[in-house]
């Protein structure tokens, strides 16, 4: 079965990419839950995270600093975006808001191009580049970092939403903004928080894959759209759905690229998106319509 022997490798690399899609999908989900809008600028947060971390690293070669600095910087960008682009909106209907986030994504990408140019930059892997054998597949240490940090982040998020007061308040706002207001939760703050949080998630994802895929000004577009597809696939609004969607998408992409044709690799995500929208729009794990 020669054709199937690279299968484990495909699956492993698929899971790595999938983990990034999952992080991005979670970012979409958090904002969707707090505001019911789709923030198409999410992908650009990934890009900004990668490039900021790289710049910080170039100033001072400390990976932990670059990571934290990158996440912090992009969180500020996310908060600024909410404050400047979304809060002042005169007529907050879904159509307008979609267009604004799309415009924001383009704008941020343009700024990035001016700041960093079109060249790719690299970030050294966190713990070296000696491949590790994992049964029939080989995996780079960075891949394990992606999966590991990704898993930790998801667990922390779950704990945050279920166990902390702030997390529960955010969920309350999503279910019933008016009731939440009545009991004293500031929906404005929750929206702010959701933007900051998802920007942080995106940035983390970007910094994690930068050693693998290089940081470049236009990496955010495709990643964002694929992360979005993963979110829809898994069920917008469900964190487990986002994770599932991301991993599934990553593996499907990898398999299709390896077994069928690599040129259509990017099309897999959107094919699955259309499939999800037409067959089960609430996604695999989504409950609400």
């Amino acid at each position, binding site marked *: 079965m020669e054709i199937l022997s690279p299968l484990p490798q495909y699956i492993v690399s698929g899971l790595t990419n999938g983990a990034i899609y999952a992080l991005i999908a979670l970012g979409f989900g958090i904002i969707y839950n707090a505001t019911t809008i789709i923030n198409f600028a999410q992908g650009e947060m990934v890009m900004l995270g990668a490039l900021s971390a790289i710049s910080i690293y170039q100033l001072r070669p400390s990976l932990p600093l670059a990571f934290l600095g990158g996440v912090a910087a992009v969180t500020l960008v996310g908060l600024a975006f909410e404050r400047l682009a979304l809060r002042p909106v005169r007529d907050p209907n879904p159509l307008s808001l979609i267009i604004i986030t799309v*415009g924001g994504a383009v*704008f*941020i990408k343009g700024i990035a*191009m*001016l700041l960093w140019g079109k060249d790719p930059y690299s970030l050294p892997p966190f713990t070296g580049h000696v491949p590790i054998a994992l049964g029939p597949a080989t995996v780079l240490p960075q891949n394990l970092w992606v999966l590991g940090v990704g898993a930790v982040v998801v667990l922390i998020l779950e704990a945050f939403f279920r166990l902390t007061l702030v997390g529960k308040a955010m969920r309350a706002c999503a279910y019933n903004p008016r009731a939440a207001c009545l009991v004293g939760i500031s929906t404005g703050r929750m929206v702010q928080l959701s933007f900051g949080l998802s920007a942080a998630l995106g940035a983390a994802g970007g910094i994690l894959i930068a050693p693998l895929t290089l940081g470049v000004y236009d990496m955010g577009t495709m990643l964002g759209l694929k992360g979005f597809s993963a979110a829809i696939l898994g069920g917008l609004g469900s964190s487990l759905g986002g994770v599932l969607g991301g991993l599934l998408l990553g593996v499907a992409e990898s398999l299709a690229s390896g077994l069928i044709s690599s040129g259509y690799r990017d099309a897999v995500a*959107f094919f699955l*998106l259309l499939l999800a929208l037409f067959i089960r729009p609430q996604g695999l794990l989504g409950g609400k319509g």
Partner: protein
Amino acid sequence: MRLRRFLNRWLLFVAVVILIPLAVESEYYLTLLNFIGIHTILVVGLNLLMGYAGQISLGHAAFFGLGAYTSGILTGTYGINPWLALMAGLLISGSAAFLIGVPALKLRGYYLAMATLGFGVIVYIVFNELQTWTGGPSGLAGIPALALAGFSFNTPLKLYLLIWPAVIFILALSASLVDSRTGRALRALHDSEAAAESLGVNTQRLKLLIFVWSALYASLAGSLYAHTMNFIAPSSFDIMFSIKLVTMVVVGGMASIWGSLLGAGVLTVLPELLVFFHDFEVVIFGGILMTVMIFLPRGLIRGLLDLKEFRRYQKEGGGLSG
């Protein structure tokens, strides 16, 4: 009286369109005007969808590309009559729009936006990958010019004589549509979908109809584009172009036929003016899109006109009621 003002506007417009080629000799400017014309056709269709039906297509470049490639491949590779090829393009784009629209519009909200996004990316990738037919990333060359009874539209001036009558026709047709029973139903749908439904308007079917209609306009523009450039490449039909189209609608004003012309004009000329600032093009488009939507959600021109009227109301001491 309204009729007179209406006719005046159109007569003026047609007069200007006729006079321009008499005054302008530069091939560069004529070509620029041709592109404005092609973009106008695209933008009017998208405006009908966004401004009236209240839906958004983030992948309209795909229909533009389908028209272009159908015309390009059928005429360039297979030597089929360009007019037939144009019809084929309409058929293909229209069918694609129908197939996507039926499931996407069954759902409430912005599912059409997402579906068109996905569709747009897939079509772009297909254009790049089906190399034997489309020529892949390096494009498809050797597309012949359109011809009518021996007269070949193969110079910028002749293309102007092809494109701008088409633009006038499309503008007139669209204005007529907006004023008709279907147009009223559309505008009603935009203001209150529930009320429109309660009066017998099948809103789902109407949205689908307008979506397909806008795809047909885009396909027409694509075919004209193919025969203008005699060369097409996938990079002209990417998501950035879809976003540029949305920006043109937004700048010109939603639900405005003339606004479509204005938006297409301004944003086709702008990159030419900014040729020294090419790097800024992306930032500027994104910035325009954001700022206009935040502060003037009905579009730039419409929004400015509204502001002017509002100030006039305030001065006259009137409120909005009574």
